[in-house]
């Protein structure tokens, strides 16, 4: 299997360089990584035009973000790229934990059937970016991709945000109603606005590599504490497509990153792990963990998403997945505001909801990092004895922390949700991300609930649905409705007795749920979910 070769995206001379006023963009997106590209596509699906500006002309080097969670795949489905990602990716749901040379336990992340998407796929970030770029090209009138265009400065005036762009053929300033900064951990936009991260940095260094070898390890996540083949505290093995394996090795806090990056240092470490089988090292990186974020993600007309807003340690797959959930949360709100269907204050709920999501990711990844890098003798003893107890006492297995893998973030209790007045059971409370379930369409075709949700507000009605307010698409289940529930899982997961109605946000989160609501009740919940403060 040949190693990945990125397509090369040409520089196209923009009109601004010839003194012509470029168009006034509703949205300028800085950074064509997974987050920026997903944002452009999500906005285009809502009919909003954007320009994406990126300094490179190729996709990501090295695998970088590889574990894409079920929730991210559901969002990718909504964006129209899920099938391609899953077809190429390595599907996995089992993780195995080893301590020294023995297996402590194994876990299954998706023990329940009746969901379209698996718990995780592994897919190199370069594929994700390539597929998103291909998808963005489906919207030539709504998405303009500008490569080899480096943002050097950014700012805003009361009526617009702007970025200064440097290209091989000159510089120009581009104005937009909003700028979304998706320019990563070293964000130029963040620096231009004089904003700093708050939070913790960890001293510990990690070596992260892509290794190509023709072996068939199972599609599982293997994690070692005190591995027998490596003198550091931990090791991780993850299978990716094309016979590429991701190997992470913990180096300790004294490691010299420049020295450890040299192939002469790396190859013996990999050899000790994989034995005498032939392999090639594709990519090497050395990093230390940070668990930090901006105090706020929304600064008037400049909005931060992904690593420019928050960074976490990678154990838990919460970086890339957190960024895609940012996009999912932000874009329908931005489209609502730009179309004049909701107040600018709606954007503030992106700030509160995704700061909450980032804090959840930071908390979980900081705890995993602490477990992996005990900082005192006593912390070390506790860590070791948790591992020792885990082989004989099942309770202790749940204390072992090699990364609490990304789960969809619940927005229960936040302002866009309508407080419950019904006695409905189950977990689909206002703010919850919608659970999937198998459904059958009107023509008898089998499908999945989540493929019918999203993009606009939807009233999901069990049994009859009297009528829906303007701006809400009705979707009925059962009887002569739009969907049937062949296995009864939809009703079970949504406590879906006849006359139960869910109002569902464009990002597939529950906004409200009722028994036998009036149209006025649904209208009030809709107004509230669109940021109307007096709803």
């Amino acid at each position, binding site marked *: 299997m040949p190693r990945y070769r990125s397509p090369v995206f040409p520089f196209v001379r923009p009109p601004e360089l010839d003194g012509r006023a470029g168009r006034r963009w509703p949205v300028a997106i800085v950074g064509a990584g997974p987050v920026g590209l997903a944002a452009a596509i999500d906005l285009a699906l809502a009919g909003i035009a954007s320009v994406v500006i990126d300094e490179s002309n190729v996709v990501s080097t090295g695998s970088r973000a590889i574990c894409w969670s079920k929730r991210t795949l559901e969002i990718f489905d909504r964006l129209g790229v899920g099938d391609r990602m899953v077809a190429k990716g390595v599907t996995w749901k089992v993780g195995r934990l080893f301590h020294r040379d023995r297996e402590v336990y194994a876990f299954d992340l998706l023990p329940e059937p009746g969901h379209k998407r698996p718990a995780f796929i592994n897919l190199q970030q370069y594929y994700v970016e390539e597929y998103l770029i291909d998808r963005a090209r489906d919207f030539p009138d709504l998405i303009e991709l500008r490569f080899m265009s480096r943002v050097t400065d950014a700012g805003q005036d009361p009526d617009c945000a702007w970025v200064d762009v440097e290209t091989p053929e000159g510089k120009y300033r581009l104005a937009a109603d909003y700028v979304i900064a998706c320019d990563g951990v070293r964000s130029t936009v963040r620096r231009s606005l004089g904003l700093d991260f708050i939070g*913790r940095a960890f001293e510990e260094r990690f070596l992260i590599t892509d290794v190509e070898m023709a072996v068939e390890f199972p599609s599982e996540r293997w994690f070692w504490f005190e591995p027998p083949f490596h003198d550091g505290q931990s090791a991780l093995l993850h299978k990716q497509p094309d016979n590429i394996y991701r190997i992470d090795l913990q180096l300790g806090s004294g490691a010299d990153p420049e020295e450890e990056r040299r192939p002469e240092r790396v190859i013996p470490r990999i050899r000790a792990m994989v034995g005498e089988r032939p392999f090639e090292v594709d990519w090497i990186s050395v990093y230390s963990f940070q*668990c930090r974020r901006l105090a706020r993600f929304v600064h008037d007309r400049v909005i931060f998403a992904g690593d420019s807003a928050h960074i976490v340690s990678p154990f838990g797959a919460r970086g890339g997945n957190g960024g895609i959930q940012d996009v999912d949360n932000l874009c329908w709100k931005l489209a609502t505001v730009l179309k004049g269907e909701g107040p600018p204050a709606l954007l503030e709920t992106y700030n509160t909801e995704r700061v909450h999501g980032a804090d959840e990711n930071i908390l979980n990844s900081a705890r995993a990092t602490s477990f992996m890098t005990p900082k005192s003798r*006593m912390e070390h*003893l*506790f860590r070791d*004895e948790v591992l*020792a*107890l885990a082989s004989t*006492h099942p309770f202790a297995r749940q*204390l072992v922390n090699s990364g609490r893998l990304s789960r969809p973030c619940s927005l229960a209790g936040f302002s866009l949700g309508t407080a419950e007045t019904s006695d409905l059971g189950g977990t689909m409370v206002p703010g919850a991300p919608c659970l999937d379930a198998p459904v059958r369409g009107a023509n008898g075709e089998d499908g999945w609930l989540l493929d019918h949700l999203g993009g606009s507000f939807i009233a999901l009605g069990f049994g009859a649905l009297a009528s829906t307010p303007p701006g809400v698409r009705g979707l009925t289940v059962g009887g002569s409705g739009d969907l049937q529930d062949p296995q009864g899982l939809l009703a079970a997961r949504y406590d879906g007795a006849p006359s139960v109605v869910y109002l569902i946000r464009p990002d597939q989160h529950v906004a409200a749920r009722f028994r036998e609501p009036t149209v006025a009740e649904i209208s009030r919940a809709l107004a509230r979910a669109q940021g109307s403060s007096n709803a």
Partner: protein
Amino acid sequence: MTDPTLTTTWNLGTDGDDLYARLMAAHEGLTDDESARLNVRLVLLLMNHIGDRAVLEEAIAAARPSRPEPTNAT
């Protein structure tokens, strides 16, 4: 302040001396490192057995010296 839930009155009946001696006996002949590991395992086993967050929070607070904990503990 809610009512304390950690039992701090005598709760060992007539077994106190026996149990204290049992605990000391368990440490006999162990190195300091082995003793520390025994204590750690005991804490983990009892923490899981108790399984009550409020009780455990109180016990941790009662056991810790009065110096404040660092605020960035996660």
